[in-house]
């Protein structure tokens, strides 16, 4: 049996479009063929996790059973009680499979955990989000079918964007009007073609054509070199166009299915500062961390008066957020360094913004300073991606 890495092969798109046509015709006529949709979803999940990756498929099934059980049990509990420790235990249990997958290679000579599968991180974000929102009382009723549809929505299963349960369900339970759906189709096609440009042309250019010789030159030279600088920018471009291209595919295909999966990128390289950058880069991930880690932590610290100063509270929040994000990428020094780097950058950025606010009259602000801000931000971001790439590890430690 064949197995597909989603959105990598042109054939994948042909299959996808062929199977989506009935869904498209249905929605155009104001109907959702939910059974058909479910069958197609399962079929594509089988394609992604079948053949040589069958063990990943089994892991996915076990994982889904486990997470749905956690969500269901917690919601059932939450409908009657609301004790903090139960909530904490539920969240910890929900993230435990992901933790095992992330920690195993770090303590076991790089050998991946046997329970892992493609996309476990993104499913965990969705599951944890549901538990947290049940605690808030925003999600009130457990619905097995909707939960499964949300978790296993196949266009985004492998690498996001990370949707929100309530937003997803609203789309899923409704059928968009014909006018609205035509607009979605149009956008979907545009996104997919933009994705082709990003992933198959630009990411290919940066990642496959330019990057290997630059990497080779940098390794040959060793230590600091111009080639290393070149590597930093080229890798950054590759990272962006590859991931943004993939995300555009996922969003485009979602639109075809009448689901407005949120966008992941919004011109990140024209960010004016680091905070702005995180509102534009891998948005569904950074918003997830903002809403479910940062805000909650800051709120908790304020409520319990753990730290008096609001500034210190924010700093602690940032470090927690970015360190956790670093660990999430993988338990290696460079992902954690990447997290710390961004935490420090955003704290410096905050300090500067406060300073600027205080001295409003005396600091110039015009087109030129704006360009300067974009330039600085861009370079700081690229430097962080160089850390993230793990290339320094190869260069200095092996």
């Amino acid at each position, binding site marked *: 049996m064949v197995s597909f890495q989603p959105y990598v092969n042109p054939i994948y798109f042909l299959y996808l479009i062929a199977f989506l046509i009935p869904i498209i015709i249905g929605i*155009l006529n104001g109907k959702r063929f939910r059974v058909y949709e479910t069958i197609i979803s399962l079929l594509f999940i089988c394609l992604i996790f079948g053949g040589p990756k069958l063990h990943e498929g089994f892991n996915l099934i076990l994982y889904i059973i486990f997470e749905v059980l956690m969500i269901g049990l917690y919601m059932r509990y939450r409908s009657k009680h609301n004790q903090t420790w139960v909530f904490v235990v539920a969240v910890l249990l929900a993230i435990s499979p992901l933790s095992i997958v992330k920690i195993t290679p770090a303590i076991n000579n790089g050998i991946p955990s046997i329970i892992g599968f493609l996309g476990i991180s993104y499913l965990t974000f969705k599951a944890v989000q549901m538990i947290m929102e049940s605690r808030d009382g925003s999600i009130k009723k457990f619905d097995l079918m909707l939960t499964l549809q949300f978790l296993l929505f196949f266009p985004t299963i492998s690498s996001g964007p990370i949707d929100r349960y309530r937003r997803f369900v609203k789309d899923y339970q409704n059928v968009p009007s*014909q006018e609205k759906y*035509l607009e979605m*189709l*149009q956008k979907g*096609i545009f996104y997919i*073609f933009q994705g082709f440009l990003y992933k198959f042309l630009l990411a290919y250019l940066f990642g496959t*054509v330019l990057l290997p010789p630059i990497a080779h030159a940098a390794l*040959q030279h060793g230590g600091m070199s111009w080639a290393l600088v070149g590597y930093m920018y080229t890798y950054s471009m590759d990272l962006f166009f590859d991931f943004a291209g993939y995300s555009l595919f996922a969003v485009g295909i979602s639109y075809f299915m009448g689901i407005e999966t949120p966008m992941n990128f919004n011109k990140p390289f024209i960010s004016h500062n680091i905070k702005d950058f995180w509102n534009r880069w891998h948005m569904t991930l950074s918003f997830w961390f903002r809403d479910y880690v940062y805000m909650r932590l800051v709120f908790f610290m304020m409520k319990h008066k753990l730290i008096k100063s609001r500034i210190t509270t924010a700093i602690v929040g940032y470090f927690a957020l970015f360190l956790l994000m670093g660990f999430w990428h993988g338990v290696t020094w460079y992902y954690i360094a990447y997290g710390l780097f961004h935490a420090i950058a955003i704290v410096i950025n905050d300090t500067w913004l406060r300073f600027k606010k205080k001295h409003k009259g005396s600091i110039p602000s015009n087109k030129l300073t704006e360009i300067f801000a974009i330039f600085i931000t861009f370079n700081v971001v690229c430097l962080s991606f160089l850390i993230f790439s793990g290339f320094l590890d190869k260069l200095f430690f092996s």
Partner: protein
Amino acid sequence: MGLKKKLFMIIGPVILAIILIVVILLAPVKYNFSSAKTEEKAAVSQSKNILGGSVIRQQALEDGYVPFIGSSEYSRMDSMHPSVLAKKYNRSYRPFLMGTGGTQSLTHYFDLQGIKDQIKNKKAVFIVSPQWFVPGGVSKQAFNMFYSPLQTTEWLLSANAKTESDQYAAKRFIALMSDGGNESILKAMQKIADGESLSGTDTNIFRMKLTILQHEDELFSGFSVPNRMQLIDRQTRNLPAKYDLATLDVLAGRFGAKGTTNNDFGIQNSYWTDRHLDGKGKFAGKQAKLNYDRSVEFSDFQLVLNQFSKEHTNVLFIIPPVNKRWSEYTGLSAEMLKNNATKITEQLKSQGFDHVADFSKRGNEKYFMADTIHLGWKGWVAVDRYVNPFLTQKQAKPDYHMDDYYYSKDWQQE
């Protein structure tokens, strides 16, 4: 606007795009964008895309370029390099370098499939490195790096499952292709390895794929060809206006002396430092166990010879030496090197390949090698002593008589 019209406005361009792609990729025409400039660049680029493609090489060979087949020695572009000499002295031929680090007999066997018609009854130069003949022959990684679906498909369509040589080639391909390779190609290879011909359906599908791959080659392989023309031009400026081998040899010695000042082995300075060869005794005796005289490569090499014989190509073979001072230091066996050269020569001469320049005993000559294993200054002059007359003068028609014995384990292990 009605629904149908709206829908058409949205989907129309996509359908148009798909039709355009299908037409462009399947049209029975030949796109030709290559110019004299592209050919000149491609001839010295040693680029993987050029070697793995066909159209630019075909065009160039038709315009007077001659295949110079080999591996990494062609990257040593000093003033005596064949491409530099041919340009400076305005020879009637220009080398088209085919080969770079990692290309060995089997890769060349497949890349020759793309230029069969162009080498028919023509000449070629082939530098066959002793280092190819390690027991396992070409590494999986190197073979896959230069794998060309275009040439493989071309080979499949002309393969004759009844011949020992094609069965052998298919077996080698299967053994070397990494997992996840193209399934339909692997299946077809298996058929040929088993002595079965491809079915009509197989052939039709591969024909269609070949058209797509050819168009891909025609449209895209001319992009991003590395430009080394300035490097070549710069090197021509170091040469005297009048061609004289003795003068060139003296000059080569002078360049060599200037370029090898940081070590006692006659190794180019940059090579010496880049590869950290000075590591205190790190390399002493390290090559004592290397073996180049029993190898599957001898049979892979036979495939190449077989192709030349089929096309009646007249080929000058060059067997380069290794740097003697270095090989004595690393303990590389002189006996084994001798066996390697003897075996290659025997395989060539016994089948009618008479043009063999065996330099294997000249590794002790100063500045013959640019480094440990690659021809340099004086070595290139020695090459030109053979290449120039071979390519510029009329040669007798070769008379080849191929022997399948060279595909056997017996020969590989002799």
